[in-house]
């Protein structure tokens, strides 16, 4: 287990380095910088001398490999640089934003798992029934709805019409504020999980060992509980892992929509302001999160499927 963990951690290093390199190069070659945005994009809003001094100060005149070298050596010490905008260390900005994003993502995933997996099971156990059709209608609509639109609908209904929940903002960070953004974010992974679960269970129900279980004289409920569930879990877990990654990206839209003070909205704002260190830092954190989730899923595989543990 420990050897596996160490191997996985070492494997993650090149991935992280590659991502850092790509992000760094990409934001160095795209047109526009903090300078041009301060300059009113060429309308000469700022004094030329001030601009020159700032450029020196931020190190924007150095060749790209010098800047990358400096970035990497600072990164190795856990320093993600200083925001161009706020002059705050990027790490402390991210630290403030991390918790709301994690809250949002885990709440959305919890919603997706609690609704999606049972829905998929119900559909698979009675294929072709009304329950199957209904749950798949829910799943397909959940997949097809744009998040910003669904979010607006929920806001309209629960905040404006019914007045049960606040329409946006983080407030005290309580469940009341979390609910709408989490559901908005959770609907599409919920739909995907429902479909994946249904497909997985349907496939496992035709397996030989299910026939063996039936030949033992088990009720269908027991067959599912004792033999189908754990096997389906292996497949469902893969889907959950993939969805976590996707959620990190989708959170950007939802955070923006609900003015949720997370990494996603920080990322969008920083891109608009060409605050390159903050953009790089945010993406770095997202990538780390993604890798951590993948690793956790890999470890969980080993717990569920003995074939992975030993081979």
């Amino acid at each position, binding site marked *: 287990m420990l050897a596996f963990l160490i191997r996985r951690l070492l494997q993650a290093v090149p991935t992280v380095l590659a991502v850092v390199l790509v992000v760094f190069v990409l934001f160095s070659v795209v047109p526009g910088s903090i300078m041009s945005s301060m300059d009113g994009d060429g309308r000469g809003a700022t004094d030329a001398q001030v601009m020159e001094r700032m450029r020196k100060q931020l190190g924007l005149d150095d060749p790209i490999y010098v800047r990358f070298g400096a970035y990497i050596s600072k990164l190795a010490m856990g320093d993600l640089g200083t925001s161009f905008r706020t002059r705050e260390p990027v790490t402390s900005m991210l630290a403030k934003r991390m918790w709301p994003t994690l809250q949002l993502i885990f709440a959305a995933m919890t919603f997706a798992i609690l609704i999606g997996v049972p829905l998929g099971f119900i559909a698979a156990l009675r294929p072709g029934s009304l329950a199957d059709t209904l749950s798949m209608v829910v799943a397909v609509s959940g997949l097809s709805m744009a998040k910003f639109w669904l979010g607006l609908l929920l806001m309209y209904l629960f905040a404006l019409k019914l007045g049960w929940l606040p329409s946006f903002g983080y407030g005290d960070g309580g469940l009341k504020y979390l609910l709408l953004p989490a559901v908005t974010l959770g609907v599409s992974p919920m739909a995907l999980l429902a479909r994946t679960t249904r497909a997985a269970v349907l496939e496992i129900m035709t397996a030989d060992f299910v026939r063996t279980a*039936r*030949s033992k*004289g088990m009720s269908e409920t027991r067959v599912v509980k004792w033999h189908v569930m754990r096997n389906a879990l292996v497949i469902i877990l893969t889907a959950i892992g993939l969805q976590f990654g996707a959620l990190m990206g989708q959170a950007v839209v939802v955070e923006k929509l609900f003015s949720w003070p997370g990494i996603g909205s920080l990322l969008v704002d920083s891109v608009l302001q060409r605050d390159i260190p903050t953009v790089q830092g945010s993406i770095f954190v997202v990538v780390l999160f993604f890798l951590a989730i993948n690793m956790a899923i890999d470890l969980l595989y080993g717990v569920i499927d003995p*074939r992975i543990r030993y*081979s």
Partner: protein
Amino acid sequence: MTSPPLIEVENLRIDLADRSGRVAAAEGVSFRIDRGETFGLVGESGCGKSITALALIGLLRHPLSIGAGTIRFDGRELQNLSAAEQRALRGNRIAMIFQEPMTALNPVSPVGRQIAEMFVLHKGKDWSEANRLAVEALADVRVPAPERRVKDYPHQLSGGMRQRVMIAIALACSPDLLIADEPTTALDVTVQAEIIELMRNLCAERGTAILMISHDLGLVANVCRRVAVMYAGRIVEERGSADIFRAGAHPYTRGLVDSLPRLGSRAALGRTRLTEIAGVVPAIADFPDGCRFNPRCRLATDICRTTAPEITPLDAGGLVRCHHHA
């Protein structure tokens, strides 16, 4: 004929539903097995032997279903039992071993647990007691170090070991009937002999009757007292196993026997070709009229192409379904 048979199948028809309606995948299947008896069902792939077995244990699933006929187990008609009553028989009094020990066991559950389930389901044991009994059951099928092996997962065992686990599961509740559907087809030849021997001995100890299903006539005749040969969904001949080798009455049976290689035949007869049965087994939807074997039969005459032969008793004992039987 004094005691009632353990299981009696009468005129069983198994329907296969497809888009165009229903076709009979097996029909007119009748046989009986006495307590402790060994009975073999032989035929090529797709002749209906496996689905007959599934019908006996009540595991036919859509698109297959019982179309007609009766299955009486211990005097009770299986079709009249409720789902719960059927489940109480299944595994407990009728057990089944499947062909593929690779896939027939749950890959993510320890084998001991898969055996222990039987005691929980049918003997009202709690898990700790059931687990203890599972160790004994594994010892019964001659698995070395059973107290360690119960914790193993199927992928950690060899094919032969897995089939032993399957036998342990099937015989856990000392059933009255064991259905063995090609139990050794997926195994090495040397392991085959061990598994068959084990199965026979354990069943003999428990007084368990065996219904052995195989395409291997030699194997079945070796294990079973009586053998029925199936072709294209019908039983074409039923005999004592010695008779079937010596003097098969149905042309198909003779074809099967003749197509077996014989030890020493080269010394006696010189280099000869193995005999084969010309043609192939028809698909279920294209079963020919009359006798279903007629397109491949050397003895076929007009009546064979129009009228299906009835099952008729032979003077020497046994039954045959042929207009021209020997």
